[in-house]
């Protein structure tokens, strides 16, 4: 049982790695959390980011726009990889989603 679940998670990692390099955003130097659709929740989470994390995000996004305009990509050693991608927005996003569900629960009472 334990072995099979470890096997499953290894398979997931492998699939994730393949999907990550296949998606292409990493070649523009973006991270996964830079590409989220800007819903109200994501906007609020972005607003809550510490200043330096927000600045890094904006740098990556403007660099990607610039590259995209030039129809160019970064040299391979500057690509983000599955391993150095940081889910920097996740804790803030989870907080916002939890607060929203708490609010809708109270509003439905």
């Amino acid at each position, binding site marked *: 049982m334990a072995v099979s679940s470890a096997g499953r998670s290894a398979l997931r990692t492998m699939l994730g790695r393949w999907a990550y390099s296949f998606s292409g955003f990493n070649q523009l130097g973006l991270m996964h959390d830079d590409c989220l659709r800007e819903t109200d929740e994501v906007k609020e989470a972005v*607003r*809550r980011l*510490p200043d330096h994390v927000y600045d890094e995000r904006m740098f990556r996004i403007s660099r990607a726009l610039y590259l995209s305009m030039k129809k160019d990509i970064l040299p391979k050693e500057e690509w983000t990889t599955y391993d150095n991608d940081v889910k920097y927005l996740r804790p803030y996003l989870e907080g916002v989603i939890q607060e929203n569900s*708490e*609010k809708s629960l*109270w509003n439905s009472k």
Partner: protein
Amino acid sequence: MRSSASAIGRRLYAAQAAAAQKTEAVQASLQKEQPKISKLANGIQVVSVENFSPVSKVVVVYNAGARFESSQNLGVTHALRNAGALATKDTSFFGNVRNLESFGASLSATGTREHLIYTLDVLRNNFDAAMPFLASVVTAPVFNQWELDAAANRLKVNLAHYEQSACMRVMETVHAAAYRDTLGRSLYSPAYMVGRHDAAAMADHWGRYCTPGRLAVVGLGVSHASLIDHVSHRFTAAAGGASADATTARFGGGEIRELTGAPLAHAAVVAEGAAVTSARDVVALALLQKLLGAGPTIKYGATATTLTSSLAKVATGPFAASAVNASYTDSGVFGFYVVGQPADMAALLRAGMEEVRSLAKNGVTDQQLQQVKQQLAAAVLMEEEDANEYAICLATQALHSGDLISSNDVLAAIAAATAADVAAAAKRIVTGKLAMSAVGDLRNTPYLDELV
């Protein structure tokens, strides 16, 4: 129609009478209880008084007030009390507000120079439901920067009120002049620090000073066992962090003047008063304060105290004067406060100084002493009627002495005070170093060296 209405009336009266009999029976079975105090293993002092009120009040007091600020984090305690119900490890800001509202509870955060105070009032039936929220707020705040940024606007409103109040400005600046640091730290953040109290600064102050050993929890209208149960189970997250600063307050003296566009002049002159630990001095100065005048005892009435009557002889326009008396754990301020027409201020302040000097020289008469003793005894007992004042008073006693003084002991100490005690207290005031502050139109307000 009429007869049926009167029948209903009679019925209601009868029901009321029956209810009244019932409450009398219940009242007869409720014994007046004395405050109980316990110290938990982690150092939290728990005090409770079962007063059988339908509303329970819990007051949480940390020994973490403005006096513990440093010059780097000035105003951090103002920011902390402004951040009263923000998110905690277990609850969100929204959750705190909505849940406490649904319990019919009210939560407030206040602060003094020495203490940070959280007060929860809640219907007795909802006490058990509301306590976890209070516990989270006072033991596990997380200080999210985005919430602090949003709350900073309220600091600006506080400061705008403060700017407008000459009275508050005089009291803050006279402490600053007297003590410089420690007790001289203002309850209000300087304007330039608003927005600079970041999460790290708040967490640092919290970790240093909001620790179990510096915490007292007082409950009014709760049973002692139930309060202890909640505190010992839920107030466990209170952390012990970096070391606390324990500098003793030193009365240095000096003066601060602030010119404003106000039409009146406000000024206070104080000397070092009594620390709460010296009970004899506290009583003597409280008597002296009553003698000089501590505001009118009848609403909108005149005060026929020695200070007011001697100032009235020299005033050309309306004025008000009262004694200032504040005691802290290691020091205190005592003096007088005058509001008057700008042109009168020199004469008013000189007359005030002369009044205190003559009290120190001539002492008080027996008749005066008896009168102020009665006023003071009444004031002490009336203070116990105010649940907030009473709870905070119990908390400070528990925090600083680990014991409670009964009101009978206080009354006995007042009765035992002599005219010599009062005269000696006045003498110490006139021979001690002075601190002064003045706010308003200061065209004729003398400097401190022109008064002594």
